């Protein structure tokens, strides 16, 4: 096999340029995923039946329907109801909203492992439920669920490749395009994998650091 580093060297700038889109979608998607995930999780556990069923439905829908289909719906069906989003907004929203369903479940799992007494102590002090969530429950749920959350964020980085279906030239798409022209898939894919790896490695190490910092005792 002749593995050509020249091909990689020649195409690296284009791959890196494409990686910027990947990065943008990932980072913005993560923000949506976490904020919305916390809210969904709270709704899912709420005693308000309407809220709880909405959250259940949301989670079931966004986990159930393939993200590809969700993206197409965001981009191509929303215009029919008069909401024409720019491609990048559709990509960010769809990935973020889909990921939020998973994040919500991770947090819900972690919350169950927090001893009930802690919420009782807050209740007994009259701490409002918003503060209870913000200060007591969510920080601990994030600590407990951190490895799973990092998993989810890494998946989000990778799944941002689907943004190509709304016409965004992100990393995977561009590497496919280059492959189509150079007929050198191995080289190009190794290079693309390298870029994904760098992004995810940073994310993952960040997660480990946070884990260390949040460790108690």
């Amino acid at each position, binding site marked *: 096999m002749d593995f050509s580093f020249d091909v990689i060297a020649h195409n690296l700038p284009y791959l890196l340029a494409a990686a910027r889109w990947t990065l943008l979608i990932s980072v913005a998607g993560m923000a949506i995923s976490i904020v919305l995930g916390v809210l969904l999780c709270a709704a899912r556990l709420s005693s308000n039946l309407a809220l709880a069923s909405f959250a259940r439905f949301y989670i079931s829908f966004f986990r159930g329907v393939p993200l590809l289909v969700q993206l197409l719906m965001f981009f191509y069906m929303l215009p029919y109801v008069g909401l024409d989003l720019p491609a990048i907004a559709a990509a960010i929203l769809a990935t973020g909203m889909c990921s939020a369903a998973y994040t919500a479940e991770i947090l819900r799992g972690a919350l169950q492992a927090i001893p009930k007494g802690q919420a*009782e102590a807050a209740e007994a002090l009259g701490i*409002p439920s918003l503060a209870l969530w913000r200060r007591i429950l969510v920080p601990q749920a994030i600590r407990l669920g951190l490895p799973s959350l990092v998993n989810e964020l890494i998946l989000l980085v990778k799944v941002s490749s689907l943004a190509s279906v709304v016409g965004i030239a992100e990393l995977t798409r561009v590497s496919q395009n280059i492959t189509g022209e150079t007929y050198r898939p191995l080289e190009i894919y190794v290079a693309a994998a390298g870029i994904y790896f760098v992004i995810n490695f940073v994310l993952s190490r960040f997660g480990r650091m946070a884990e260390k910092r949040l460790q108690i005792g």
Partner: protein
Amino acid sequence: MNTKTPSAATEALISVRNMSKSFKDFEALRDITLDVNRSEVVCLIGPSGSGKSTLLRCLNFLEAYDTGEVRLEGELIGWQEGTAQPRRRVAAGTLRRQRQHIGMVFQQFNLWPHLTALENVAEALIQVKGLGKKAAQDAAMAALTKVHLSDKAQNHPANLSGGQQQRVAIARAIAMEPRVMLFDEPTSALDPELVGEVLTVMKEMAAEGMTMVVVTHEMGFAAHVADRVAFLDKGRLVTLAPPADIFGREPDDPRVRSFLQTYRERNVV
């Protein structure tokens, strides 16, 4: 020997009427009726599993009692006034307001493990009392100093000894300056010296007009601090009397008698 004069206030701050509570088929509390007057200290004693913690938890509605009433300053706690069975809970905000004036120290402490001792105490001051961060920390530090823990303010609960954790829990409750304090074995993990100190803190609080309900296994403690002592057995309130009547002479109730018997035998140092 209890040396305090009986409290002058006569109006009941907490009034419990025919209150019962079951866990599935198990009747943990049966038909409890009990008044706690303003500035009064009532100690709950009784064997393990007799329902002391459950009674305390019903007072601030951490357990929803089944039948009967619990009132604080005349206001029904937890349930909506005058609703027939099945009863309806009050709104969350109302319950929160009601609870704000009822401080509680848990048997298992229930500290928040991700916050330092200081943060554990300051949290409610910021969130409920609305103090600024600085003011809350000062107040929290003052409360920790009261229980001799200012040097461990920055430790997380996992790095505190059992007694230290218990004192943080006490500091957390007293910092809120509630009208009533519920203590669930506040000295169980303390050494004799600290028990004395916590007792002093509680005496001061009582002198300042704090109403207290204290579950304890320390008879000496009950004898010293309580205005009245309630003896629970198998979910029933068997005796409710000033400590002198219980500890000073042979109690009438055979159950109470045998309970105290074992205690006396052991404590002849």
